[in-house]
């Protein structure tokens, strides 16, 4: 274990992370650390592995190599301190649940899933709904909301998790201007309370305005650090420049080697 990994002021410490889908490398030997208490944007072109970085960190998919620590601990020890906002398209919005039901799902990790929701849970859920401005929509079926409102439901669910570190997969994708404003306000409020947010972000224009930390990714890590240091023209050119074809072969080779490894 690296010494930095034990540092609890580091929210996320990723070491040597390599992920391939079907032999195609998506992340290649990524090493990075994100300090706690920052709003961190993960930036990169399509297919650069941004979502994969988040999913791999949360243990949602299998990795070829690499380790991840949160606040200096392994994933299973700190799961309850982690919040997750998946991409909006990842679920069936026609599912028969109400907005309040979905937000209450965020409490599942806290209450113990078998128990009835306690008054505290109800209170947290209402507060989260208020924070994203969906109080009066609590009883709606989720399919009856607009895209931006649906995104806010997911955000409220993550807020209900009362986590210390939030991973958000494209929270601004396809939302209207007022929702974008609302989400930014929520992010800033989270930072004021000392929480950390790692969000996949697409709109380069707004990075310096919304975030104070950035991870530039294009299969491999290009740069990571405070926005004013790493958000440079040169780094962006390297991020959005052509991908190294050698990495394609390299990742394929590693995936093949893993297939061959005795299980």
């Amino acid at each position: 274990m690296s010494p930095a990994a034990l540092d609890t002021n580091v929210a996320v410490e990723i070491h040597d992370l390599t992920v391939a889908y079907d032999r195609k490398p998506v992340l290649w030997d990524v090493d990075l650390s994100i300090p706690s208490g920052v709003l961190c944007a993960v930036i990169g072109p399509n297919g650069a592995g941004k979502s994969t970085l988040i999913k791999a960190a949360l243990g949602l998919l299998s990795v070829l190599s690499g380790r991840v620590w949160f606040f200096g601990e392994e994933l299973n020890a700190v799961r309850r301190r982690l919040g997750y906002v998946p991409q909006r398209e990842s679920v069936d919005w026609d599912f028969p649940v109400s907005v309040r039901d979905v937000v209450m799902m965020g409490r599942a990790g806290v209450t113990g899933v078998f128990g009835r929701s306690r008054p505290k849970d109800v209170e947290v859920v209402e507060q989260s709904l208020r924070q994203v401005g969906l109080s009066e929509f609590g009883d709606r079926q989720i399919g009856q909301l607009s895209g931006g409102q649906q995104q806010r439901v997911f955000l409220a669910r993550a807020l209900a998790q009362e986590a210390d570190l939030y991973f958000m997969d494209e929270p601004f994708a396809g939302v209207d201007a007022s929702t974008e404003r609302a989400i930014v306000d929520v992010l800033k409020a989270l930072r004021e309370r000392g929480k950390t947010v790692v969000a996949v972000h697409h709109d380069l224009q707004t990075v310096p305005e919304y975030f104070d930390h950035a991870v530039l990714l294009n299969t491999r890590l290009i740069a990571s650090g405070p926005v004013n240091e790493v958000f440079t023209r040169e780094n962006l050119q390297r991020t959005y420049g052509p991908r190294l074809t050698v990495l394609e072969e390299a990742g394929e080779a590693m995936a093949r080697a893993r297939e061959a490894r005795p299980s």
Partner: protein
Amino acid sequence: MSADRQNDADACMWDELISLLSMKDATTRTVMLGVGSLGVACGIVGCLTVLRRRALMADAVAHAALPGVCVSYLLLGERELGALLLGAMIFGLIASGLIAAMRGRTTVKDDAIIAVVIGVSFAVGIVLLKSIQNTPGGNKSGLDGFIFGKAASMARAEALTVAAVSAALLVLVFSQFKVIRLVTFDPAFAKALGLRVRLIDLLIISMVCVCTVVGLPAVGALMIVALMIIPAVTARSWTDRLSTMLVLAGAVGGIGAVGGTALSASVRTPDGSSLPVGPTIVLTIAAVCIVSLIVSPRRGVLAGWLRQRRARREMMAERVSERARAGPLAVTTAQETNDPGARP
């Protein structure tokens, strides 16, 4: 046939239907208890498979149960119901395991694999059935009852078993309601919370297997999946809440099963025999479902069609007024970009 005799026959049928539904007779009560609780359990478990988009996987499991029954009969040589159903259960789980194991491993897609499992396992079942019929001796009567079901001959012990199993399934679903809902709705989030998504999936598919297996003697392998899918679809058209949907689907399944059984016993075919129970139950529930799908206020076909028509009309009105406001040049550009033929 004279009109009088026709009227007599009709009156006779109604009398019989009413007497069956009032359940004065002990045998009737037993059968109704059996099929009713089966309908409730299937309806509720069916909701989970339909929402998890595994509706036709349940069909594969049901078809695979048939060779399972035959294999355990061949191994044990007796028509011991428990053993036969254990065989069905094992084969059902194997089928679902095979489908899961092949998923994504080859270029053959899920739906084709499911269809292969349905067709081939039924073929295996028929071959085994034939070879059982060819062997002399043994009490082999009623094995082909597993195809279409023979609810009318349900024994008291069988009915009680079905009722007990159904009750256990209900307790399981409602005690694990939140976990099941979470995993069904958003498996990735559930996994991020540290829940064992695969375990819950296995639980759901095992419940499908259990439902199939207890329903096999009564409704048969070909029809049992209808008892799972149709009540779920019916219930979904009336409610937007999962808990209500489960209760409704259970009710539709249970009432439909009882009603269908009564109907099958009271309607006489030209040759004087009664209707097959499984198919009659399916048709009864399907009638409820089709009516629901058509008239349901929020999700019905009728409402959807009206909504679409209204939207189209509003859009047309808007476009007309827009064109009236814009000059002739704007009209041509609007036609170019908004050509209704371009978007079917």
